[in-house]
């Protein structure tokens, strides 16, 4: 193998991880939400809100505050979702799509130069206003794990990334552990399988669903923050480009397991970065549309394959999408 192709592979892997982390953070959270029986189609909108929040707050107070604020904004949207879908028992599809439109609209509004400038002025008058009009923010710094980053091929991909990449991986492992090894995780999964049974066993179905939706939405907010300050720190409208919906299908692809979500997310991160590199290497230059479709086509094909492999029985949580009410 030539040195050039080695470094090409290394570059692909590295950008697979950094692009994949957007999906990882969002789909790990959605795994938790869906395991409790609620589907959150609002991911796309919440991600967009997380991104715009991180843009303005980074300028005003810096990175850490931006990440926390994005999580908080996500959590607020999650509360709204839970109130409508869990308490009022509205159709989860409708609620989720409404939240997506709300989030996309609101983030576009906040991102408009005049509005962003005013927001920045209100939050921190000492920061020069024109920064908001540049539509840029400082990128999250890389944190190189000195020794390990030197490992050939995978070292740079895994150990020379920003803090949110590591946090995303850690949250996948942690949430997997919570879901499958703790008492609370068992209760949560039971609520997603059979809420009536969990209820009679004394599990607080409503509290668990609220919490699961809020956790998933907060992580979607963080995924949006990562998308902006960790991946592409230049604000454009429609920054998310359906990534929230891809994260939703990655949840199915990882059969609702945060650990498998790591593999699924990085795989799609890889596909996405290939999409930018293939034209550079010569072919597909005349038909960029085809290549842009790649992630979506692969999503559909893998979903079909999974469905065939599991004989049509995708192991979804049995109560997914079904509102629960006490009386019969």
């Amino acid at each position, binding site marked *: 193998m030539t040195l050039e192709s080695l470094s090409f592979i290394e570059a692909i892997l590295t950008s697979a991880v950094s692009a994949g982390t957007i999906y990882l953070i969002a789909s790990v959270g959605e795994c938790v939400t869906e395991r409790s029986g609620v589907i959150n189609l609002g991911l796309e909108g919440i991600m967009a809100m997380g991104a715009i929040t991180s843009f303005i707050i980074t300028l005003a107070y810096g990175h850490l505050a931006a990440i926390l604020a994005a999580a908080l904004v996500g959590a607020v949207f999650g509360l709204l979702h839970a109130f409508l879908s869990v308490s009022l028992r509205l159709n989860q599809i409708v609620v989720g799509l409404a939240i997506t439109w709300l989030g996309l609209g609101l983030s576009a509004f906040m991102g408009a130069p005049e509005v962003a400038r005013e927001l920045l002025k209100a939050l921190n008058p000492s920061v020069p206003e024109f920064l908001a009009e540049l539509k840029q923010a400082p990128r999250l710094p890389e944190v190189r794990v000195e020794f390990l980053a030197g490992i050939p091929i995978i070292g740079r991909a895994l150990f020379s990334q920003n803090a949110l990449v590591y946090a995303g991986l850690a949250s996948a492992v942690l949430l997997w552990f919570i879901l499958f*090894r703790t008492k609370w995780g068992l209760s949560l999964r*039971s609520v997603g399988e*059979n809420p009536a049974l969990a209820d009679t066993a004394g599990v607080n179905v409503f509290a668990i669903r609220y919490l699961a939706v809020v956790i998933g939405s907060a992580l979607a907010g963080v995924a949006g923050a990562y998308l902006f300050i960790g991946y592409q720190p230049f604000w454009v409208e429609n920054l998310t480009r359906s990534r929230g919906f891809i994260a939703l299908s990655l949840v199915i692809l990882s059969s609702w397991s945060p650990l498998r979500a790591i593999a699924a997310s990085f795989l799609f991160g890889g596909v996405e970065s290939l999409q930018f590199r293939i034209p550079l290497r010569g072919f597909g230059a005349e038909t960029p549309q085809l290549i842009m479709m790649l992630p979506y086509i692969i999503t559909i094909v893998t979903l079909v394959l999974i469905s065939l492999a599991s004989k049509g029985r995708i192991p979804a949580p049995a109560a997914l999408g079904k509102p629960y009410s006490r009386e019969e």
Partner: protein
Amino acid sequence: MSEDLLASPGPAPTLTPKVEMRGIVKRFPGVVANDRVDFTIYAGEIHALLGENGAGKTTLMNILYGIYTPDAGVIRVRGVPVRLRSPRDAIRLGIGMVHQDFRLIEAHTVVENVFLNYDGLGFIPKWSALESRLEEIASNYGWRLNPRARVGDLSPGEKQQVELLKLLVRGADILLLDEPTSVLTPIETKVLFKTMRRMAEEGKSIVLITHKLSEAMSVSDRVTVMRRGRIVLSKPTREATIEELSAAMVGGQLIGNAGLEERPTYPAVDAPTLQVSGLSVMGDEGVLAVRDADLTVNRGEIVGIAGVSGNGQIELVEAIAGLRKPVRGKIMLNGLDVTGASPRRLMELGLTYIPPEGKKWGIVPELSIYENVALRVARYKPYSRMGVINWRKVAEVAGKVVSEFRVDTSSIKSRAGSLSGGNVQRLILGRELTTSKPSLLVAAYPTKGLDIAASEQVRRILSRLRSEGVGVLVLSEDLDEILELSDRIVVMYGGRVVGVVRRGEATPELLGIMMSRGVAASASA
């Protein structure tokens, strides 16, 4: 068969009441499900609770388990008056219930099901310690149960053991079992009864709801009969007789085989409605469940399929009903080759299928009774025209189903899911038979979960159909029923038809031998 079900009833229980229910009243819209009921459970006893469908047995137990609040009455547990607001309250008092339908999460493992929200667990439970605890309890009762198995992969008998484990780890010593034997094979029933006896010896009290009098007689220490919401008899089992119990259940009038006497002469052999030849069918595990089966059902004849469950009967019947594609062989319905035809096409060609486990496969519990009837008829005139349902006509026929098949309900607008187990079965039979005129009726376990009178009624319906010239193929686990009904009995063993016995030549002994060893003995084909 009743004698060998259990070694011997235990020693006379000491008569300390553990639970006293006094003057319990529970009304539902249109019915009084429990009418001033007094019910006592003593320490260390197995207490059989009998009664027809809709008598109020399940309701009474649901009250004791905290699912329903009674409209009147008091409950004392170990002498102390209690108020039970939820199953959690009941569990805390040592009362546990296993429902008619299992309440388990199929996707989870045994240990996860048992310890869901268990109080003594820390945030991070020691799962392996919990697993060995389950293994210990299981071996104490002689069960073979893997705590790590997925519950969806277990047999009904094992699922029941998981339900019992849920109660046992929470320290339940008053166990309410609602028709636990209706889903079990005879061997599994035996294991359960051994377990129950063992539990009683440990001082636990067990309420056993059943429709099988022989079970009540052989396993219980005390027997109580309910009828229309009231207690009509309660005494030590050894002082009771089967005749007395069945009379108490139906309210004095004795039931017999009167309806079955008008059996015409043996039907014409040369009018087959169903001919199955060389049929092989794949089972769920990917091995052939039916091998090379031949079978004929003539018009005006009842053919019973006998066999220990799991010997291919259900797969055979499902293949005939179009629910499984045969691997080899041929199925002819009224002279037409229908191998591999869809259930809908078969229905149009005159086949009516009554599925097993009616509550699961036969109705949509969330819909009302008449909507469930509509599901069956909505495609046909005069119930719909150009895709628009004529609800008046549907309601008419639903009313007919309810009255002719005596579905016990206050209105056809009631949710089908609120019907008692037996009434669901009547609704399904009624719906299928009122709305179509089949030439072949295939019924899988049609009397499972039905009380004596209702079973009798179903058998009467089947006989009536037969005398009207319908061919009937019936699957049953109850040998007595098969013997009583069938003109010919097909015995299956290991997926093969090992013999066909004519009425008159069949005895329980002969069938028993064929079913357990697969030898055709001297049976004529």
